């Protein structure tokens, strides 16, 4: 590639990076502005007087700390459940060579491919008939079931290439099945499991549809839903500054995860695509 090509590539990449990040930066700027400045035309690029009033508002007037805590609980719990169940299932299917294999693959992969909204009405109806609505536990179960796909996808791919001899050797050394799985297989699978867990955690943190529908109690709401409740007294007095503050608070965890684990996330997403 020539020098000119390089320069053009840099220009384009910088433009794309700006395009990707600009909305986030604009939200950060808005969140630090006073109510008057937010509504000032022409808009100021940077806040004139930096104020944290929007942040204090969302934590004082609204239980936003509770929302974030709930998000964290749901994401962490559903990720843990999905990791255990998904890793088991992936290992099992990867060792299987029968006609059931294809069906099981389909069962575990399909929920990740299909849009979640297809299951909304069915799950809502079923859960409300057995009183599992309006509880974080119900939401955790739903998230976990959907995460199984991503965990299964990534880990099955890994286990397929996992050397069987290692397991056999461990068995000869006197390990039980479970022992061999936990002491030999899983430690080696840890990096892949972390990748899967990261993705599951992000999906759960971001999930909105089920969180909106299955949970109605304000003290059980998660952040993505709590933020959509912030819309002012009428449609014409939208508290944009507070919304921006909430957007920043809700986005921060996932942005930090991307900053820390960009490589892992990319590799996790491409695991399936690389497969063929």
């Amino acid at each position, binding site marked *: 590639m020539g020098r000119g090509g*390089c320069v053009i*590539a840099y220009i*384009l*990449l910088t433009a794309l990076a700006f*395009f*990707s990040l600009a*909305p*986030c930066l*604009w*939200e950060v700027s808005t969140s630090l502005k006073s109510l008057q400045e937010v509504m000032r*035309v022409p*808009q100021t690029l940077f806040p004139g007087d930096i104020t944290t009033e929007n942040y204090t508002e969302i934590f004082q007037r609204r239980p936003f700390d509770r929302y974030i805590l709930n998000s964290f609980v749901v994401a962490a719990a559903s990720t843990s*459940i999905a990791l255990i*169940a998904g890793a088991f*299932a992936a*290992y099992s*299917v990867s*060792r*299987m*060579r*029968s006609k*059931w294999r294809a069906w099981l693959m389909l069962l575990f992969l399909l929920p990740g*491919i*299909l*849009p979640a*909204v297809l*299951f*909304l*009405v*069915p*799950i809502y*109806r*079923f859960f409300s008939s057995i009183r599992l609505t309006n509880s974080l536990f119900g939401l955790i179960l739903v998230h*976990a*079931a959907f995460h199984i796909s991503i965990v299964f996808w990534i880990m099955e791919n890994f286990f397929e290439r996992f050397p069987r001899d290692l*397991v*056999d050797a461990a068995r000869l050394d006197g390990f039980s*099945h*479970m022992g061999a799985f936990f002491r030999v297989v899983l430690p080696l699978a840890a990096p892949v499991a972390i990748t899967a867990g990261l993705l599951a955690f992000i999906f759960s*943190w*971001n999930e*909105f*549809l089920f969180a909106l*529908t299955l949970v109605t109690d304000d003290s059980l709401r998660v952040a*993505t*839903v709590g933020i*959509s409740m912030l819309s002012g007294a009428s449609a014409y007095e939208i508290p*944009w500054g507070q919304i921006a503050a909430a*957007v920043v608070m*809700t986005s921060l965890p*996932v*942005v930090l995860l*991307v900053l820390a684990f*960009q490589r892992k*996330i990319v590799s996790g*997403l*491409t695991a*399936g*695509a*690389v497969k063929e």
Partner: protein
Amino acid sequence: MIRSHTGSYPSDTAFHIAILIPAILLCAFTLIYPALLALHTSLAGPGGTVSLNYYSRVVTDKLFLASLTRTIIFAAIAVFLEFVLGFAMALLMVMPLRGRSFFRTSLLVPWVLPPAVIGLAWRWIFYEDYGIVNDLILRMGIAESPIPFLRQPHWAFATVVFTDMWKTAPFVAIILLAGLSVIPQELYEAAAIDGAGRVRRFSLITLPMLTPYILTALLFRSVHTLGIFDLVWVLTGGGPSSSTEMLSLYITKQTFRFLNVGYGAALSVTMFVITIAVAVIFSFLSRRRF
């Protein structure tokens, strides 16, 4: 039935079945059973009989058909644009440039942000009265009066397409990037020696090698775009004048606003079938070629 691959330990089979149970139970309880229940509800006729009443209503429901058409048009445009932008991103990101990691991370950001949350950010950016886009447009004299981004049906549709493109092009880029990075460099060098130009090398090597990745990306994006909810719900709520009322919003409206729960179940099943059909078409395409 299930033969263990190692063969030497008969109880392996039992172990392998046992560890399948948690995942199967979880899926059965939260996904399969409710889905079957919904299928049952959607087939319920008067007095406990089986009937296709709800389905005959589905196929004659003008609003459903309008929403389906709208969703398909939306998916076609949005996926096309995402694909073009995502492809461009991937081609740029695969270049061995310094600072590559920074660019990869930046471009990835839109995709990991919560759609329901980032929808609010865009609503603010496109806000008619003092949103930044209209502010700039007016200041630069591009238009005389603010553009009704979310108030006028066509604009609202375009705004949703744009936002969805912004959000999901990185996903396409990542998948294609994976494909691009496994193409052996020698192929290009050999082709270059044979005198193939940039365009020929792209169409002879890059595209064919990339096809499975392209299909994977298109499959995921098409199916998910057909089911889009969060972003639209937050940006427009389906309005104005139903101009952005996608299938998922129509189903939730029938279920939770009109309280036609049985009909909502029938609509969900119908959408399920349509989605599966799209998925099957893509997997058929990818199988035929490889």
